[in-house]
């Protein structure tokens, strides 16, 4: 989710560690399976339940905890705490709220209450007023920002310098806001923005952990800003003024214990200060501050919540001094946001108060320029990707002249070069001796040496900044790899540059290098560490891209060798492997020019899937149905393309497996809800695969069993297959950890990463004692979470290009219940009754009848546009007609108005293969804005209907109990069944072998 990523996993993990150390029984509720905190070993009880009132209340009712700690789970957790308190759940169950009482959360979140608190301590907030008509504009301070209430991504808002502009903007805003309400706020555009991370304990001790300065001025969300720590442009008196203000605000709001982030705007010339906002909880900025200073805010906050005071908590890095101090830095830290605008064509790329970045990279250097450069190269921007801060020539307007000069100097002179040496992050600038294991590199200095132990060293490369297609799942894998290697007796060393992660917690590994994941920075770490091996298969594409250079530099890769990676990734070579094994894949070819591509497409047969040959992860993929579309797509791409036959309506299967180079252990066979053509990362995914009969299941396993050793995989292998017309096709094989590994591990109870790490270290599968391959009895569903609401203008439809930024998991005894729960967890709860609007493409017209019939049987009122309505009417269904936007003549209400006015509870809208996407896109956007669940494939619609019809109320069950049940079930499975399966497989393999030999 944008604005809330793995930084809260980091916070949660830290908190769990210290709470358990203190003898507390801990219960975690989180629907995100790709988190470390939801690992069965991290808490006493783990609930992968929807984070809504119902879900959490059920867990609380079942577990009856003494206290609830909501300040470590971001805004979601804080909002839930308020809801639980308001609904009386906490009182009824006698649960104490730790960290921040309800009234404190309200005082920080409610605009009016916050203003009163701030003004009460002699400080100012920007003036603002809620306006519901044009008569209320008297006395508004200009320039002003107009923000309509409840519009998507702040749509309809604007900036007003004059009375005329104000009048015009408010008029637009009132029209756009569904409740005819706008907020008019004093504009602080161009003021400098600072953040202070403050901690307070129950004795009223307050320390400022870190100051953060935003390079992008006020008006750009701090999550989208380039930020630097510590602040670099304020004099002591100016900085102390902010420090005093921060302490006054945390006291006035009344945060009793824990951390808060307080944001200030400061006028560069006059020095005037405004308090912008406060988060009475651990935040993205506090994760950054923790990584920037080495001061573990979440850990300390958790200890404070249970009654410790700051002076009773030791400084983690020095161990001899207390946490009641303020870290001092002898280096500079710069954070750069990572954007993904290329995934949302049509979206507004202007940065504003809504956060739009999907990840961040942090650089640590001895100087600002060094730190900036590291963060800059850590972003791993795709070729031809538009991004703010694209290069050093285009520095945004409003950047403080000091930074502008520094960046200019960096551009002209570059950084000084020399041997990379490593310095410690110790939180005290060297004043107190520290054996910190947290390092960054610089040049031209001495090295802070470390004590080498007896144990052999393994270096694990992380996954870099979060981006679409490479998110927290890979950090989960890296952290598990570290844990596994440490358990195997290695010193596990980690390299990564993403401040939001658990992997960059210095507690995770034996040594942490906060460095860019590029050849120039990774190889010197290897030279210093002299590892017995380097592990590249857990961090997604980022480390995989470095595998060649690492091997070429003379270091050993543990697990899958470069040759195997190349064999899987090179289309030509992979094609030969498949041919050799007699495995089918969709017909394909490579074309350089439009006419070649069209010719190829005609030969393969439409529809075809087109994508540039240089990118992976679905970037710029297009499904084309005719020559015209191929031509158009080619114009957009330029350069070589891969043309694949597109298997329409195929069932997509995802397999995660382990391979030791000889044999294969199938970890999980998952089925996608949406058909092939929707990116696997965006599709909902079910385990065990419900549509596979025993024979197909065996076929799938057999394909994977043969691919693994042939490719030479040692470790994890992910294979994606499509089942079309009864035939299995191999779509791709990834010789590395996949996105589904955390989900599969949690659903099956088999720690895939640990097993893979052991294989990489040289173990054989039979030595691992993994037991039989498991097909869980519980049904688990993984659903994707999308950021469409932040990108108005971009069509929120699923396609071959991945666009989700997160995922949730839900398990139940049956698929409908699990699916309903997963949708709830993803923030799209399915309605039980009401009105459903249907509008499907021509090809789906007959299939939609089934879905509509069942909805009608469930009591839903059906509404449809002409084409779909005709199809439903013809099938004898009662259906109301509604105009498309393009059809309206002005009198009848259009579908968009229907949705906007809240008279529609569910939207089923499958996009046209081509042509008039405009109507569909408007419908989907309206649904998004009105928070109406919108389903864009018939497969998902079918499952949704089943979920509405058959989803049951089920008491929450913890992961620990669930896995124990799976364990028992696996034991009970009759031996005979297994033997039969094995025999059948063996026979099949023999037949295969014989056919091949022949």
């Amino acid at each position, binding site marked *: 989710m944008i604005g809330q990523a793995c930084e809260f996993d980091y916070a949660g993990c830290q908190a769990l560690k210290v709470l358990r150390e203190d003898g507390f029984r801990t219960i975690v509720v989180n629907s995100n399976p790709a988190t470390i905190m939801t690992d069965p070993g991290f808490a006493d009880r783990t609930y992968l339940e929807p984070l809504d009132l119902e879900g959490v209340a059920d867990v609380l009712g079942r577990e009856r905890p003494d206290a609830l700690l909501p300040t470590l789970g971001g805004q979601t957790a804080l909002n839930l705490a308020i809801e639980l308190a308001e609904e009386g759940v906490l009182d009824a169950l006698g649960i104490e709220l730790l960290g921040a009482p309800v009234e404190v959360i309200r005082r920080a979140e409610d605009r009016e209450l916050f203003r009163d608190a701030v003004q009460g301590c002699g400080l100012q907030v920007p003036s603002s007023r809620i306006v519901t008509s044009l008569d209320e504009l008297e006395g508004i301070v200009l320039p002003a920002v107009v923000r309509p209430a409840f519009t998507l991504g702040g749509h309809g808002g604007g900036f007003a310098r004059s009375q005329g502009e104000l009048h015009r903007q408010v008029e637009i805003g009132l029209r756009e806001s569904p409740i005819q309400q706008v907020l008019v706020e004093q504009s602080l555009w161009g003021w400098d923005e600072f953040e202070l991370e403050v901690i307070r304990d129950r*004795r*009223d*001790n307050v*320390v*400022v952990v870190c100051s953060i300065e935003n390079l992008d001025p006020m008006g750009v969300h701090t999550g989208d800003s380039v930020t630097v720590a*510590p602040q*670099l*442009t*304020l*004099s*002591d*008196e*100016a*900085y*102390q003024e902010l*420090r*005093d203000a921060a302490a006054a605000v945390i006291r006035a709001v009344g945060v009793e214990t824990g951390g808060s982030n307080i944001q200030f705007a400061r006028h560069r010339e006059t020095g005037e200060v405004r308090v912008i906002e406060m988060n009475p909880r651990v935040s993205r900025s506090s994760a950054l501050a923790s990584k920037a200073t080495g001061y573990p805010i979440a850990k300390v906050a958790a200890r404070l919540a249970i009654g410790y*005071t*700051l*002076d009773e908590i030791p400084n983690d890095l020095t161990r001899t*001094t*207390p946490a*009641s*101090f*303020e*870290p*001092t*830095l*002898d*280096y*500079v830290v710069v954070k750069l946001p990572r954007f993904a605008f290329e995934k949302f064509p049509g979206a507004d790329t202007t940065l504003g108060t809504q956060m739009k970045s999907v990840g961040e990279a942090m650089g640590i250097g*001895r*100087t*600002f320029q060094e730190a900036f450069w590291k963060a800059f190269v850590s972003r791993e921007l795709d070729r031809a990707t538009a991004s703010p801060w694209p290069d050093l020539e285009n520095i945004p307007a409003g950047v403080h002249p*000091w930074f502008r000069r520094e960046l200019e100097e960096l551009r002209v002179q570059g950084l000084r070069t020399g041997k990379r040496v490593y*310095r410690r992050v110790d939180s*005290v*600038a*060297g*004043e*107190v*001796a520290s054996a910190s294991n947290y390092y960054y590199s610089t040049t*031209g*200095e*001495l090295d*802070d040496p470390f004590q080498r132990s007896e144990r052999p060293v393994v270096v694990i490369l992380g996954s870099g900044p979060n981006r679409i297609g490479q998110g927290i799942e890979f950090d989960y894998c890296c952290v598990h790899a570290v844990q596994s290697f440490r358990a195997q007796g290695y010193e596990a060393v980690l390299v990564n540059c993403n401040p939001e992660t658990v992997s960059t917690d210095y507690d995770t590994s034996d040594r942490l290098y906060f460095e860019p994941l590029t050849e120039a920075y990774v190889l010197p770490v290897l030279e210093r560490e002299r590892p017995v091996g380097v592990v590249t298969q857990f961090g997604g594409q980022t480390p995989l891209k470095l595998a060649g250079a690492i091997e070429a530099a003379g270091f050993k890769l543990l697990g899958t060798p470069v040759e195997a990676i190349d064999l899987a990734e090179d289309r030509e070579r992979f094609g030969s492997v498949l041919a050799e094994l007699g495995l089918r894949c969709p017909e394909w070819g490579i074309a350089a020019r439009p006419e070649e591509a069209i010719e190829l497409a005609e030969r393969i047969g439409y529809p075809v899937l087109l994508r540039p040959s240089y990118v992976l992860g679905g970037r710029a993929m297009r499904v084309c149905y005719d020559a015209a579309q191929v031509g158009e797509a080619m114009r957009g791409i330029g350069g070589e393309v891969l043309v694949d036959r597109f298997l329409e309506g195929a069932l997509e299967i995802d397999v995660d497996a382990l391979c030791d180079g000889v044999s294969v252990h199938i970890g999980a066979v998952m089925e996608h809800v949406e058909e092939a053509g929707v990116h696997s990362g965006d599709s909902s995914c079910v385990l065990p695969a419900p549509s596979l009969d025993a024979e197909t299941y065996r076929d799938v396993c057999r394909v994977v069993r043969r691919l693994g050793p042939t490719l030479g995989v040692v470790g994890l292998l992910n294979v994606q297959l499509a089942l079309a017309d009864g035939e299995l096709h191999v779509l791709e094989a990834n010789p590395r950890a996949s996105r589904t590994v955390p989900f599969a591990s949690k659903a099956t109870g088999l720690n895939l990463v640990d097993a893979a790490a052991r294989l990489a270290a040289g173990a054989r599968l039979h030595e691992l004692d993994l037991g039989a391959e498991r097909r869980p009895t519980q049904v688990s569903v993984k659903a994707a979470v999308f950021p469409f609401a932040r990108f108005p203008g971009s069509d929120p439809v699923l396609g071959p290009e991945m666009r989700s930024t997160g995922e949730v998991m839900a398990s139940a005894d049956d698929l409908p219940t699990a699916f309903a729960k997963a949708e709830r967890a993803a923030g799209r709860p399915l309605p039980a009754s009401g009105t459903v609007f249907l509008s499907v493409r021509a090809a789906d017209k007959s299939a939609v009848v089934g879905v509509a019939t069942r909805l009608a049987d469930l009591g839903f009122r059906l509404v449809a546009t002409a084409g779909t309505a005709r199809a439903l009417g013809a099938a004898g269904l009662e259906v109301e007609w509604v105009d498309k936007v393009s059809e309206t003549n002005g009198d009848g209400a259009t579908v968009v108005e229907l949705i906007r006015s809240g008279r529609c509870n569910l939207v089923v809208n499958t996009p046209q293969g081509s042509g008039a996407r405009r109507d569909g896109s408007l419908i989907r956007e309206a649904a998004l804005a009105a928070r109406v669940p919108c389903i864009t494939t018939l497969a998902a619609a079918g499952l949704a209907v089943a979920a509405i019809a058959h989803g049951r109320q089920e008491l929450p069950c913890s992961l620990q109990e669930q896995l124990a049940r799976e364990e028992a079930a696996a034991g009970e499975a009759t031996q005979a069944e297994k033997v039969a399966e094995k025999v059948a497989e063996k026979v099949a393999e023999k037949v295969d072998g014989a056919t091949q030999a022949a």
Partner: protein
Amino acid sequence: MSEVADCYLALEDGTVFRGEAVGAEGIAFGEAVFTTAMTGYQETVTDPSYAEQLVCFTAPMIGNYGVSASRSESAGAHAKAVLMREARGPEWTAWLAERGIVGITGIDTRSLVLRLRDAGAMRAVAVAGDLGEEEALAAVHAQPRMDGRSLVAQVSTKEQYLFSNHSGEARVTVAVVDYGCKRSILRRLAAAGARVEVYPYTTGADELAEHDAVVLSNGPGDPEPLREEVRTVEELLGRVPILGICLGHQLLGLATGHDTFKLPFGHRGANHPVLERTTGRVLVTSQNHGFAVAPTDAREATHVSLYDGTVEGFDFPELRARSAQFHPEAGPGPHDGWPILERWLDEVKCAS
């Protein structure tokens, strides 16, 4: 900047750190120390307590926000050299040059800090000119050590004067004994409603006791040789409310039978935690001292350093004497100590 023949820092143990000259040309002898404060470079260099010292900033970029007359803690500059990883901006380096302060940039400051932390503050020389390393080191060894050194005479005011920037009506008059006083002390006292009169360090007890209260200021060097000054404090005890700050705190300690000693490398920075024993609260304080009052369990030791247990504050209610080893006036550093000054002055007001 003219081309300087040679530019380096040499410690008495022979360690040499090379850099580039950005301040005045010359050769500066002194004690090499470091401060961990991230802001307030100008305040630091103008603080008389840094007399005869070569100051290394652990903050890597110094000079970012220029200079301003209002930030100086005294009329002159007292640190003899400034050692930086990266000096920024011509305003700052020109300011150094004008004041005759040797400035070296490009120093591996973290290595220097680790050396000083492990081996202790050392005699050293900062060279921005023509002087070979061997010669420089020989000269360093001929320099006096900081322990046993009295430096108050060279920084104290020669004449008594009235510090006036207070607009409101002052109800009490405070005599500040200037051992090397920072302006921030005077400013805070005035802001809290005092008429502030500053006296040379030689002023006798009788003259000082005529005021409503006496502040013993901060200052450079070792408190131990300041026998006369300690005697003056002894004579003042019980006659008039006293507040000692930094060196003033150490003098109060010596006058009440406590011991002072040289810290290995001092406390210099803006982040030092001090426990207020009476309330259990922790103050984040601004510190700058190379000597300290030895740890004690005595009741009067109301404040202790959470770093090394040295005494950070005294309160002798029956003697009406109080003190802080840290800098409650801040400048640079956090304002956590302001209430100590304010409360003290309020009590003086009530009493008089």
